[in-house]
């Protein structure tokens, strides 16, 4: 299991379009990917979960990844969150 804290790059947080892209990205990996912000933990492969998380205040997100491709998954998700979208 891997865990890493990242600071969201976009000042708008996780908008629906980026949220959908994040979910699609997460879906490419076999690993379980969870995101935690404040007290809420959600499945990164769930659009509803990601949108719910996006609604919470705070710009720091903890990524938790567990599975056979956890290194690649962590790198991809962290890069997505740390890069300004559009």
């Amino acid at each position, binding site marked *: 299991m891997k865990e890493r804290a990242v600071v969201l790059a976009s000042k*708008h*947080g996780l*908008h*629906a*379009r980026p*949220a*959908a892209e994040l*979910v699609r990205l997460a879906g490419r990996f076999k690993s379980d990917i969870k995101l935690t912000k404040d007290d*809420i933990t*959600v*499945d990164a*492969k*769930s*659009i*509803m*979960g990601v*949108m*719910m998380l*996006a*609604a*919470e*205040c705070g710009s720091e997100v903890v990524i938790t990844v567990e599975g056979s491709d956890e290194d690649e998954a962590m790198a991809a998700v962290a890069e997505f969150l740390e890069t300004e979208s559009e």
Partner: protein
Amino acid sequence: MVDIKAIGQAEVLEGIPASPGIVIGRAFVLDTMRPHVEEEEIPAEHIDAEVESFERAIAETTRELERLRSGLVESLGEEQARIFDAHLMILKDSMVVNGTIQRIRDERQSAAFALTETIGRVTNVMERTEDEYLRERVFDIKDIERRLLLRLLGRKHKTLHHLDDDVIVLAHELAATHTASMHEERVTGFATDLGGRTSHAAIMARSLQIPAVVGLHEATEVIRQGETIIVDGTLGLLVYRYDQAVLDYYLERKRKHEEFERDLLVDKDAPAVTVDGRRFEVAANIEIPDEVRSAMSHGAEGIGLFRTEYLFITGDEIPTEDEQYEAYRGVVSLVSPATVVVRTVDLGGDKFGPMGAPEPEANPFLGWRGIRYSLSQPRLLLRQLRAILRASAHGNVKIMLPMISSLHEVRDAKQVVEAAKQELRARGEEFDADVPLGVMIETPAAAMIAEELAHEVDFFSIGSNDLVQYALAVDRGNDRVAYLYDTFHPAVLRLLERTVRAARKHRRWVGICGEMAGDPLSTLLLVGLGVDELSTVPAVVPEIKSIIRSTSYAYARRVAAKALKMKTGSEVRRYLEQIFRVKFPEISETEMIT
């Protein structure tokens, strides 16, 4: 204005009177048409079936959205269609699907209730955020929820049928699609937070002859689900938490109103002939075919406006030629030998069908709507014209084009009509080859070029709602500026006069089918201006006829001439009200208690 609080204890919200009458009943607060779902525990043996029906609803809704998406790709391109990707993802979402199934299995909740609970958990968090963009996404999620619920409940409960018998529908805002799907339900009244006298909720309420008040601002916030309320559509009030004295007052008003309506019906079939012998046609506007019966039972002498939008906005698919033909033929045969004026579809503005809305327009009412929309979709227009022409074989039909602002549009549309006729001839179908073609006069431009239009078409019908809106630059649905919407504004009266004069000069038939035609206060004025026909919601047909029968054409002409010389709309209104109180005291008393 009657002071309800002087009669007894009550809370009163003031709005805009949209459809007269009084109804006392239980409030059903609509959450943008999200069906009402009650918590119920399901028997253990039903769990599998419940899960299955949920999965089926997901599959069907997915197909529905994929269809909408591919329609959007075709018309507007891939980029716009991506809006639906988030929708489709929600339908596949593990949190939604697994969360709901888990609730059904573990807590034995019905699929509908389990879904609202699951979704509510997410939307509750999202609604609290300050991010406006995300708050708007809640609307998308609720839209998906609504689509799923309609499928789930539709199969089991026939949507709203299992609700209380008599409900007064309270909504923030009612769109045409909402009112169309509510038609057969037991809705006894409407009250909405937004909207003006000519918003769709208001027009529909008058068609259905149920009392309505619009523009209440906060009704859906202060009224509790199931609370007993009074909708006073005559004065534009919503009364709640009232005592016996207020209730007694309203029961008495309700009785008087009903008595007055009954009296009018006695003479409903007598023609509208003035005391000096001039006959006027009084016809009815209908939105859906079911209303024909109500129109005929109120003594309407034909259908002056058959709106066809319902065919296009209520279903999932664009109606086929045969489906349209059946709908038009049904109305035409029922009304025959009287005439039905069928208006080609007036999509755009705030109404779009399964073909989907285009990218948002900054000014939809100045944009792609009416004839502009139809001419840009010639195959759709051709299909509708073929259907209307085929219906013309079964009675008297006139075809009318909406939103005309130039001669080019009329000429282009005439070519499409010709093409439709040729196709039908080639197929050997029957139709009336001389079916009259007319235009709506609803833009100031059309009124100004009425003479030129008279050369091109057989008849006019004045759509006063839009004509007023465009002439005065007032959004009729915006309750902040609705007070500026004034049918008696001198600019409006002069456009009316110009239109009628052009029609007279070229011996063209001219009707009026807007709200103004159904306002008893306007009747003398319109008759005096010299229109041939007044077409209105069915409920007021007897009243308009009775007003025409009790006046002389000579007098009405003097009234119109005098009104045309006045400088402001309020001056005209005061003048007409004064005449009205003297000439029609019984209507004044029931309709306009001031």
